[in-house]
C-alpha cells in the first residue's frame, strides 16, 4: 500500500514516502500520455463524483481527464446546480452522496476544512481539490513532480513562493510537501499577504523579492487573487508588478538552472511578465501535464490499484 489513508486531504497528512510513492506511479501514467491510446480501463464501472462548490476550470478539467483516462464513470456537480445555494449543510450533502453509493469524491470548496469534514463522515475516498485557503494537495504534488523532473532529489533545493500567501492553498500544500522532502522554502510577498504565523512551519519569510530569489532553484509564482483583496491591503497592480512581479530583470539575476512555475491561471504582467511566462525558464505546461498524471495516480491508488500491475514507466 502506497497510501495509508482512504483520503488525500492535504500534504500535511502524507509522509515523504507516500509523496514519493505517488509521484513514482504518476510518472508511469505520464508515460502513457505519449501513446496513441491514452486511456487505461482500470476504473471501469466505478463512479467518481466531482463536486466543485467553487469556480474552477483547470483543476476540474484535469480531474475529469484523469478520471476519463482511467475509464471511470463521472458525475459532475457544481455550485450552480447543487443545493448549496438553498442553505443545505455540508452534512446533508454528505449524507445524500453516501446514499448514492459513490466510489470516490473529488471536492473543491470555499471553506477550509470542508474536505476533512466530508472525509470523516463518508465511507468513500475523498480527494481534496482545494479547501478555502488551506490545502490543494494535487497542486502541491504536481508542483513537486515538476521540480523533481528538473532537479531529482529536492534535499537542499531552494524554493521561493511568491505572492498572496495568505489566501493560497497552493502555498500551504507546497510548504508541507517541500519541507517533508528536505527542500528549503522561502515565502515572499507584500507584508499584507504573508501571514507571519507561517514562520513556525519552518519556512523563511522575506519581503524583499531580490533577496528572496537570489539563490533560488525554483520560483513558484502565485496568482494574485485580486477579487479577494479589498483595495486597502494592496495599492494596485502597477505597484505589485514593480515590487513583486517576475520580470525579465528578475529572471536574469537567477541561477542559470533556476525554473519559474505558476499554478495558473496567470495574470500576465501582474505577478509575471509575458516574456517570462512564455520564456525559456517556465515549466508551466509541464505542470499542467503532470497534474493529470498525479491525479490519475491518486485515483488509481485510492481505488486499490496495484502499483505493480502498471509495469515500468
Amino acid at each position, binding site marked *: 500500500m502506497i497510501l495509508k489513508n482512504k483520503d488525500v486531504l492535504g500534504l500535511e497528512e502524507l509522509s515523504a514516502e507516500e509523496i514519493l510513492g505517488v509521484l513514482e506511479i504518476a510518472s508511469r501514467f505520464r508515460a502513457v500520455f505519449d501513446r496513441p491510446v491514452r486511456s487505461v480501463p482500470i476504473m471501469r464501472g466505478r463512479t467518481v463524483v466531482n463536486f466543485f462548490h467553487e469556480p474552477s476550470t483547470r483543476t476540474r478539467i484535469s480531474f475529469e481527464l484523469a478520471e476519463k483516462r482511467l475509464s471511470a464513470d463521472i458525475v459532475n456537480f457544481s455550485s450552480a446546480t447543487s443545493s448549496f445555494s438553498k442553505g443545505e*449543510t455540508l452534512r446533508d450533502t454528505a449524507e445524500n452522496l453516501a446514499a448514492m453509493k459513490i466510489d470516490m469524491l473529488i471536492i473543491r470548496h470555499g*471553506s*477550509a*476544512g470542508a474536505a476533512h*469534514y466530508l472525509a470523516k463522515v463518508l465511507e468513500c475516498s475523498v480527494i481534496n481539490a482545494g479547501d*478555502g*485557503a488551506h490545502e490543494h494537495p494535487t497542486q502541491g504534488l504536481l508542483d513537486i513532480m515538476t521540480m523533481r523532473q528538473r532537479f531529482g532529489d529536492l534535499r537542499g533545493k531552494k524554493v521561493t513562493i511568491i505572492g498572496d500567501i495568505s489566501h493560497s492553498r497552493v502555498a500551504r500544500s507546497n510548504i508541507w510537501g517541500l519541507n517533508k522532502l528536505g527542500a528549503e522554502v522561502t515565502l515572499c510577498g507584500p507584508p499584507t499577504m504573508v501571514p*507571519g*504565523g*507561517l514562520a513556525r512551519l519552518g519556512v523563511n519569510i522575506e519581503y524583499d523579492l531580490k533577496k528572496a530569489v537570489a539563490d533560488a532553484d525554483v520560483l513558484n509564482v502565485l496568482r494574485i487573487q485580486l477579487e479577494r483583496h479589498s483595495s486597502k491591503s494592496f495599492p494596485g497592480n502597477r505597484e505589485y508588478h514593480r515590487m513583486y512581479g517576475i520580470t525579465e530583470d528578475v529572471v536574469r539575476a537567477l541561477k542559470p538552472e533556476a525554473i519559474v512555475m505558476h499554478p495558473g491561471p496567470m495574470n500576465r504582467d501582474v505577478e509575471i511578465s509575458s516574456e517570462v511566462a512564455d520564456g525559456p525558464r517556465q515549466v508551466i505546461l509541464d505542470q499542467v501535464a503532470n497534474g493529470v498524471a498525479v491525479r490519475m495516480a491518486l485515483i488509481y491508488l485510492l481505488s486499490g490499484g496495484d502499483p505493480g500491475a502498471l509495469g515500468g514507466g
Partner: protein
Amino acid sequence: MEWSWQRIPSEFLVTDVKLCRQGKLGKRKGFLHIRKGRIEGLGVGAPTAEGIPALDGDGLVCAPGLVDLHVHFREPGHEEKETVATGSRAAAAGGYTSVVTMPNTDPAIDNTGMIRYLIDRGKEAGRCRIHPTGAISPGREGQGMTEFGDMVSAGAVGFTDDGSPVASGGLMSNALKYADVLGVPIITHAEDRSIVGKGCMHAGYWSARLGMAGMARAGEDTAVFRDVELARAAGAHLHVAHVSTKGVVEIIRRAKNEGLRITAEATPHHFSLDHSRCRGYSPLFKMNPPLREPDDVNAVAEGLADGTLDCIATDHAPHTVTEKEHQFDQAPFGVTGLETALGVGITYLVNTGVMDLGRLVQCMSETPARIFNLPGGRLEEGAEADFVLFDPTRKWKVVADGFQSRSDNSAYLGETLIGRVAATFRGGRLTWRAES
C-alpha cells in the same frame, strides 16, 4: 445530598455545609438559616435555633447563588436556540440565580416594552432573576441613542450593542455620559471591525496554518483603549465584556491603577482554551472574541486572580445543531457556558493553583452582583436567600444530552470537569436539584 421533603418550607436550615463567602471558604462546617426568602442567619458549627426543619448539606460547599453578567437567551426571535425559560433552567442547573441578558435578540431589546417583557418572562420561568440590558442604539444599528431613562425605570441594568461594537466613538462617548447619570454602566463589545475583517478565529499560527481568515488582537485592544479613554473623559462606568487578550488585561490594569471606573469580565473559555483547539475545524471552538494564544489565556487567568478582571461571565451563546454543522467559516460565533462555568473554573483555575475556591466563587457571585448593583450574590444576614450547594471535587463528563439549555454547543463536550452543582436556591426556593 438526600432529602424527602415534597416542598421546601418557608423557613428551614441548611446544615453541615462549608460556607464560602467574601472570598473565603470556611474551614469548619456551618449552617444557613432561611426565612421567607431571605437569609435569617448563618454561622459555623451547629445552629442554635430549635424546631426548624433542616437539610443535611452533607459537607457540600454553600456559596452565594452565581451571577452571570453576560448571557444570550435569544428571546424574542430565536426561540429555537434558547428561551428565557430554557435559559433560566440552564442557569439554575449551573448554580446561577441571577443573569444579565444581552439585547441582541430579534428584534433587539431597545425599548421599555421589551425590557418589561423579558422581566415578566423571567418571573414566569421562576428559576433565576433576569436583569435585561438595553441596546445603546435603536435596532443596534449604531445610529443614535435609545431611551435609556425609560428603560432604566423599567429595570434595565446597563446598555450595550453586544454582538456588535459601537463603531462611532461619538455615540459611545454620549452613551457613557448619559448612562452614568442614570447610575448604570455601558458594556462594551470591543471590536474594531475594520481590523478584524472577515476573520473567524484568532490571527496567529493556527489561522495561518489552517488557512482561515484571522481576527487580530489589535482589533480588540484598540477598541478597548478607545472606550477606556472615553470613559475617562466622561468619568463614567465602563464595563468591558469578554476580555480575551493580554493587551486588554494590561490596558485595564493601568486604567484601574489610575482610578478609572472600569470593570471587566472574562469568559470560562478565554481562561481555559487556546486557538490550537480550532485545528479540527470544529465550530464548537468558534467564538467572538476568538480563542487566543496561550499567553493570552494565562494573562486572562492572572487578571482574574489579581482582580484586574472583576468577574467571570459566560457569554452563554446557544446555537442549534444545524447551525453548528456548517463549515467553520460559515458557522455562527458562540458557545454555551452556564452549565459548565463552575466546573471549568474549578478545573482550570482552582485545581491549577491560579486562585483558591473562595476567590473563584467571589468572581462568579459577589463581585458581579456588586459592580452591577444587583440583588443576591451575598451570603449575609438579611440578603436574598440565593445560594448554591456544590461538590468541588465531583468529576463529571460533559455530554450533549446532559444539558438543560435548548442548545448543546459547548466547547467542553467530551471533557471531564471537576466540581458539580448539587442544588440551587433562589429567594429560598429550590430552582435546581441534581440527580445524585
